[in-house]
Each structure stands twice: as structure tokens, then as C-alpha cells.
């Protein structure tokens, strides 16, 4: 059978960082093609290219060839992808909240009155709402969903929204290829099964399906073929019948042999902070009733696929998002989240989004380093009758920052240089310098090496270990770079859907991590 979609030699890079390298992939009509990969493996980039997301064009386009139905195409925008017959079910839901279910399902394909069609063309023709609603209702019925099409999307639960999103694509008569991005992530098991039924039915109608999921079991059950992406490369491909969860998990993580950067040691199980039933409502990164103890003096790794909540722990402690549940810090309960109070108590967060949260780009290195310690702990204030106004003692602050620059080896022309002129790695060091100036007892670090070149990465990891060993600072590192965590951490907690799924020692095997990340309890019972 002729392929519906063929991708040959696809390459894409963002600012010189390769995101996809030499991808070759094909999908046949009626095939359910699974796609798995850890964070940063290039899944999202591949989807963005196929659905014409403007981000791709804005960052310089891609190289390689995409053939759709045998014709070479360049998909420049979403409208073009839709015209070709490509549909997409978005993880974040592309639904218009103020419109009804029926309107959303039919958006862009509304039934119109024939007579106004002739008068003004179909774009300006009167919509036959009743006919639309009937059609939408029929589509929903095909999905065995009982839902009033006149309800607004804003009033629906997440589960139902997922099905409306799918209904919109199924409703299309011209649909040839459907891309699903983690469609089962928000569904419970029963609804997940329902979805697989729907997909199988669609594949019978010769619609090609690209199915992206982290639930390996599902992939194993419904996919005709699976491709595994790792670091932007297609590392393996399995046909139905030879798909094993163990292999998928192993291929996702890869076999990188790394020496542990930190020697193994025994940590007393004395909790410095305990989370009980802790929830953080950070959009796209929620934590739901997390239970976790962090031990005094350890380096704890937190890892998960993106969207499963590893980043939200620290931000929740800084009251950046609404929180719920109990937190005990040094055996006393934190009654109300307040960033200032928590920093005073000895907590500190190194954010993942450096540009957005980590630095004041236009201000000098010196002002960046001393800011938090000065605001919260009143450090570097000039002693005088006007101390309450808080003028800075520049001699003291410059001495401190100059020492920091030397200690952390920050490359800069002077401490008065604007931070925006520094490289990513040096900016991260500025963030660490600020943390050290605050001198916390418990440090939350989010994605410490993201967007930093390799040599700087090593230094920053060493720095974290150094801080932990010499100052006895407990550190919680949330990162998707599993091999880095394995090298520095004493324990690694794997989070799935906002909860701790498993806590593994850093020397556990790739398969174990791969399975835990996907939320799979054990290995395959039987090798298929």
C-alpha cells in the first residue's frame, strides 16, 4: 500500500541546537503509528512541523522532505495543514472556551444556507446553527458520548473537553491523518479504553493515526508500529507483535554509562521538609496530593515527563501558584505560603525559566546577586541613621560580589556589567550566586543545566554538589536530564501525574527509570 505520509531526512534546529536529526518516518493509511520519547526527544518539534505551527517558520524552518499522499509539500501554517486533511488533537486543547460544544466541533466547516452561499460566497454565508448542532450531536453519538451540544466549553470537565477535541477531528469528512498528542494523559482508565476503541474504528476508515503517548501499555495494545525518539534521533522502530514495554522503556532512556560525580553515601532518614497531600495548581504542571519527605543533607532528584509536576514543588513553596495541603518544615507546619517568610526560614528556589524568573536582565550583576538577600534579609544595608531607608553599602556589596565572581568563576568585565550581556551559563551562575548570598538551608533547583553549553553544565553540577557538601545545604533538583540526576543525587523521585510514583536509587537501570517515567508498574509479564 502507498504511504500516506513519508518523512525523509528531516532536520530541524533551534538557534544551532539540533532538535531533530535525520528523521525518516512513514505512515500508511489506516495505520496507528505510535511515537514515544522522553522530554526533549523531539516529539513536539516533529508535531509542530507536521501541523504547520508558526514557531517552526519563525525559527528558521526545517530541512528535509515531507510527502503527503505522494506529493511533496511544505506545510507553512496550520490552515494549510488542515486543508491537506491533517488533523490534530492538542494536549492543551485547542477549543474556544466561550463557544458551545457544537460550534467548536463545526468551527470552520459550518453548514450554511444555500441561497446566501450563492450571494456572498460561503465565507459570508448565513450559518445553519440547527443543522450544525444535529451534525455535531451525531458525531458525539458516534463516540458514544452523551453531551448537550449547546453547553459552553468553559463549563465542561477536562475529560469531556478531550472528547470534544477528538469529536471535532472525527467530524471532518476530509480527515486523512490524525495526530494525537498525549490524548490519554488526562483521561481515566475507562475513558482511555473508550478512546482506543474510537481510534481502532477510525483506522478501519483508512485514516492514518500518529499516536503520541507516555502510556507504554496503551502503545503496545493499539499501535501497528512504534517509533522511539531519543535526543532528536529515531533510535528504534517496532512492528505490532514485537513491541515490548521493556524495550521501549530502555530505548527511550538510552545507555549512557556515566561515572557518578558524587560518591555514594548514607543519609540519615531525618526529614527536613515533609509534604503531605500537597497540591500546587501550576497550569500545565500540576501537583495533586503529593506525599514526599526530603531528608536532611541529601540531594534529592525529582524527575518526570513534562507536565507531570516536577517543577511545581519549588514554585509552590514560593507562593507563585495556589497551593493546598500540609507542609512541615523542620517539624513545624507552614500555615500560609509566603515567599518572604519562607526565604527567611531558609528556603530558596532557583527557577528554571532564567529569563522570566531568574534575572533582571537590564540590571547589573552586582544588583542581581544581592537583590534577594538585601530585600528579605536586609543584608548590605549601609549602617547610618537612615538605615531604615535601606541605602546600599556599595563597598560591602562589591567586595562580596567580587568574591562570588571569583569563587564561581563568572565571566564578566566587571560587577557592574548588565546581566543580559552574559552567556546563559554565566547567568545561571549569577542565579546561584544570589542563592548563596541568601544562604539557604533548603534549596530547590529547577532544570539547572537547561540551555547551557556542555562545559558549563559540568561546572554547575559540581557547584551544586560543592554547596551540598560544604554548607550542608539540602538540595532538591527538578530536572528532566535523567543522567545528570543519576550523577549527583542520593535518591531520585520519579513523578507521574502530579504524584511521586517511585523513589529509585541513582544506580537503578534505564529500564526501571523508563518504566517509572511512563507510570508502568512492572515489566511485561509476557514478551509478545
Amino acid at each position: 500500500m502507498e504511504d500516506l505520509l513519508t518523512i525523509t531526512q528531516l532536520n530541524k534546529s533551534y538557534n544551532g541546537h539540533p532538535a531533530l536529526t535525520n528523521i525518516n518516518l512513514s505512515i500508511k493509511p489506516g495505520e496507528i503509528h505510535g511515537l514515544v520519547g522522553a522530554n526533549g526527544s523531539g516529539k513536539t518539534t516533529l508535531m509542530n512541523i507536521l501541523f504547520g505551527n508558526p514557531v517552526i517558520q519563525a525559527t528558521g524552518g526545517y530541512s528535509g522532505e515531507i510527502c503527503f499522499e505522494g506529493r511533496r509539500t511544505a506545510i507553512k501554517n496550520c490552515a494549510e495543514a488542515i486543508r491537506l486533511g491533517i488533523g490534530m488533537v492538542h494536549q492543551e486543547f485547542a477549543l474556544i472556551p466561550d463557544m458551545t460544544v457544537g460550534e467548536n466541533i463545526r468551527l470552520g466547516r459550518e453548514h450554511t444556507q444555500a441561497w446566501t452561499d450563492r450571494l456572498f460566497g460561503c465565507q459570508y454565508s448565513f450559518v445553519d446553527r440547527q443543522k450544525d448542532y444535529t451534525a455535531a450531536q451525531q458525531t458525539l453519538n458516534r463516540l458514544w458520548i452523551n453531551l448537550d451540544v449547546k453547553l459552553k466549553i468553559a463549563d465542561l470537565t477536562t475529560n469531556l473537553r478531550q472528547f470534544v477535541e477528538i469529536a471535532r477531528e472525527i467530524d471532518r469528512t476530509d480527515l486523512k491523518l490524525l495526530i494525537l498528542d498525549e490524548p490519554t494523559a488526562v483521561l481515566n482508565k475507562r475513558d482511555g479504553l473508550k478512546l482506543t476503541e474510537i481510534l481502532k474504528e477510525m483506522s478501519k476508515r483508512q485514516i492514518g493515526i500518529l499516536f503520541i503517548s507516555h502510556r507504554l501499555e496503551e502503545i503496545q495494545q493499539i499501535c501497528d508500529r512504534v517509533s522511539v525518539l531519543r535526543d532528536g534521533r529515531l533510535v528504534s522502530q517496532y512492528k505490532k507483535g514485537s513491541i515490548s514495554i521493556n524495550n521501549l522503556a530502555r530505548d527511550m532512556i538510552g545507555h549512557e554509562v556515566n561515572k557518578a560525580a558524587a560518591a555514594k553515601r548514607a543519609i540519615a532518614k531525618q526529614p527536613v521538609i515533609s509534604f503531605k497531600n500537597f497540591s500546587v495548581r501550576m497550569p500545565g504542571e500540576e501537583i495533586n496530593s503529593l506525599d514526599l519527605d526530603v531528608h536532611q543533607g541529601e540531594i534529592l532528584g525529582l524527575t518526570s515527563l513534562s507536565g507531570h509536576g516536577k517543577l511545581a514543588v519549588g514554585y509552590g513553596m514560593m507562593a507563585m501558584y495556589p497551593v493546598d495541603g500540609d507542609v512541615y518544615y523542620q517539624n513545624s507546619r507552614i500555615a500560609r505560603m509566603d515567599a518572604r517568610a519562607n526565604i527567611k526560614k531558609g528556603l530558596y528556589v532557583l527557577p528554571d525559566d532564567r529569563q522570566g524568573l531568574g534575572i533582571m536582565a537590564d540590571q547589573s550583576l552586582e544588583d542581581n546577586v544581592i537583590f534577594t538577600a538585601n530585600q528579605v534579609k536586609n543584608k548590605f544595608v549601609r549602617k547610618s541613621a537612615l538605615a531604615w531607608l535601606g541605602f546600599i553599602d556599595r563597598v560591602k556589596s562589591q567586595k562580596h560580589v567580587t568574591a562570588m565572581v571569583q569563587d564561581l568563576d563568572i565571566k564578566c568585565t566587571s560587577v557592574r556589567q548588565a546581566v543580559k550581556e552574559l552567556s546563559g551559563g554565566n547567568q545561571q551562575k549569577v542565579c546561584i550566586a544570589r542563592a548563596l548570598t541568601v544562604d539557604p538551608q533548603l534549596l530547590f533547583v529547577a532544570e539547572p543545566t537547561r540551555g547551557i553549553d556542555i562545559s558549563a553544565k559540568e561546572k554547575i553540577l559540581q557547584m551544586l554538589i560543592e554547596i551540598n557538601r560544604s554548607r550542608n545545604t539540602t538540595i532538591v533538583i527538578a530536572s528532566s536530564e535523567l543522567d545528570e540526576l543519576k550523577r549527583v543525587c542520593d535518591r531520585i523521585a520519579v513523578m507521574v501525574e502530579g504524584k511521586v510514583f517511585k523513589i529509585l536509587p541513582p544506580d537503578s537501570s534505564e529500564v526501571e527509570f523508563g518504566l517509572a517515567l511512563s507510570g508502568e508498574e512492572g515489566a511485561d509479564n509476557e514478551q509478545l
Partner: protein
Amino acid sequence: MIIKNPAGGRLYNEYIVPAVFIILSFLAWQFSGLSGSFVFNQVLTRFIRDGILVLALVIPVVAGMGLNFAITVGAMAMQTALLVMIGYRIGGIPGILLAVVLGVVLSVLLGYLIGIILNRVKGKEMITTIIIGFLFNSVYQLIFLVGFGTIIPVPNTDIILTRGIGVRNTVDLGMYRNTIDKLWLIKAGQLEVPLFMILLVLGVAAFIFYILHTRFGQQIKAVGSSTPTSEVLGIDAKKVRIKVMIISTVLAALGQLAYLQNIGMFDVYTAHLTNDVIACAALLAGGASIKSAKIKHALLGVFLFHTLFIVSPQAGQNLFNNAALGEYFRSFVAYGTIAVALVINVRNEDGYKVS
């Protein structure tokens, strides 16, 4: 992920504001001692004068661009067209038709320009439209106060100031007066109902209803509700927003024509100035918000707002023996309605956030 849906908040906007206006107007009417039929006739006159201008605001709100204070630009486009016709002595029906054509062409061009500007200031549309309105006002003044009679020769010297440069402050629309105004005038006792004009306003309302119920209308709603999502769904949001501004500006131009021909003469430099604020306040008085507006809000709002507008000076005179206080009350109501809408709506918007 829970979506908070403050149904109460929605009710709040839809009915509380009109209710307040009804109560205030009723009280002010009682104190003013004006006769019901006088107030009714006056309000009806304002309805046909301002109705289309208020309706011109509906589509930009639906498109998520907020209140379009730049409807003054459309108004100025029509005034320009009229002044050109008068300046070249083109009277009667051909004159008015030509004025309409020229006004519409000008406002399409200007609407396109405004649309492009607003595409660059997403999220700050309202303050930008205010500044655009003011800036165009300066350009307009430059053309007619300085340009007419110097660079641009004008055959009809009646409208030129005695010094030979610039248009007079007031220009008579005698040659167009009552061309359509008194058409189908129905009299019932003291009540006068200019049926044709009312139908015209309702016709524009029907046009907007039609637009909002086409595929294009669905796109407008989608862009207004969530621009990034609509782009993912294959809608060219920028193009939609430009088209919306063109429609709004053209309607504003037609609205200004209805306004001016009803008055019969026009103050060249001031006729358009406060139209934007009054129209916006009227729309909000009908129960619209910055995020959602319906045609019924516009139609109801014109009645409510102008009732209060007509009776309050007289009520001020009777209550405090000072008509100026009624005037202040009027401006306070106009500006205050918008200020309250801006403050309240942001709060409601927060309530809708995914939390």
C-alpha cells in the same frame, strides 16, 4: 484543572448595570418634571442619531479588541466627505450618494490602517484607539483649518472663514437636510415616530447579526475568545482583526452621517469629539462588557443612556437650582460607566482563569 465559572459574575454585568440606569433615569425623570412624551421623542431622536454609532462598537468587542474609541476616525472620514461635497457644491441626492461613497472608501482605508496598528499592540487596543482618535483629530484640523483655502482650493467660499483660510466652525447641511429624516414619519398624538430611520438603525443591527452568524462571524468569536487557539485552528487572526476594524470604521462613518443629517448642520471641529465616549457608555449601559457585547445591549443601551442624558440637566436644575450640576452628572455618568466597566471586567476575567 478546574475552570471557575462565576455565573453570578455574568449576571452581574448583564442586568445590574441596566437596572442601575433604569432606576437612575426614573428618579431623574421624576425630579426633572419633563413630560413623558417629550422625553420619549427626544430619546427616539437620539436613538436614530446615535444608534448606528453604538452598533459600530459591537463587532470589535466580540473580536476581543475592546471598546473601539477610534470610531471618531470613521466619523471624521464621513465629515471629510461631506465637506468635500459642500466645498465643491455638489448638492441634492447625487451629493449625498457621492458623500456616502467617498466616506465609505475613506473609512475602509483608515479602518485598514487602524487594524494594522492594532495588530501590533495586542492587549493595549483600547488606549491605542483613544490616541489614534486624538491624532486623527489633529490631522483633520490641520486639513480643514489650515489646508482648506491654502493648498486645497475650495470653490464654495461660503464655508471658508473670512480670512480666506480654513473652514468655518459651523457648516450648514441645508442642501441635505431632511432628505431621509422625515421619511415615513408617523404621528400619534404628541409622539413622533420616524419609522424609516428606525428601520435603518434596525437594518444595521440586522446586518451585524448577519455578520456574526456567518462563518466569518464564527471566526470573529473564536479570535475574540482565544487568539492563540484560533490560530492553531487555522484562522488568520490578524486578517480577521483588520476586517473587523474596517467594518467598525465604515459603520461609524455611516452612523455619523445619520447623526449629522438629523441635526441639519454640523460643528466641523467638534461634532465627532465625544461621540466615542457617549457611544461606548451607551453600549455598556445596555449590559455589555469589554469582553462581550450583543446587539441587544447596543439597542437597549442607547435608550437607557440617553434617557438619563436628557433628563439629568433639568433634574439638576430643579434639585440644586443649578443646571451645571446636571451637566457634571452627565459627564460623570458617561466616563464613570466606562471606568467602572474597565475595573469590574478585569476582575471577572480573572475569575475565568484556569486555576
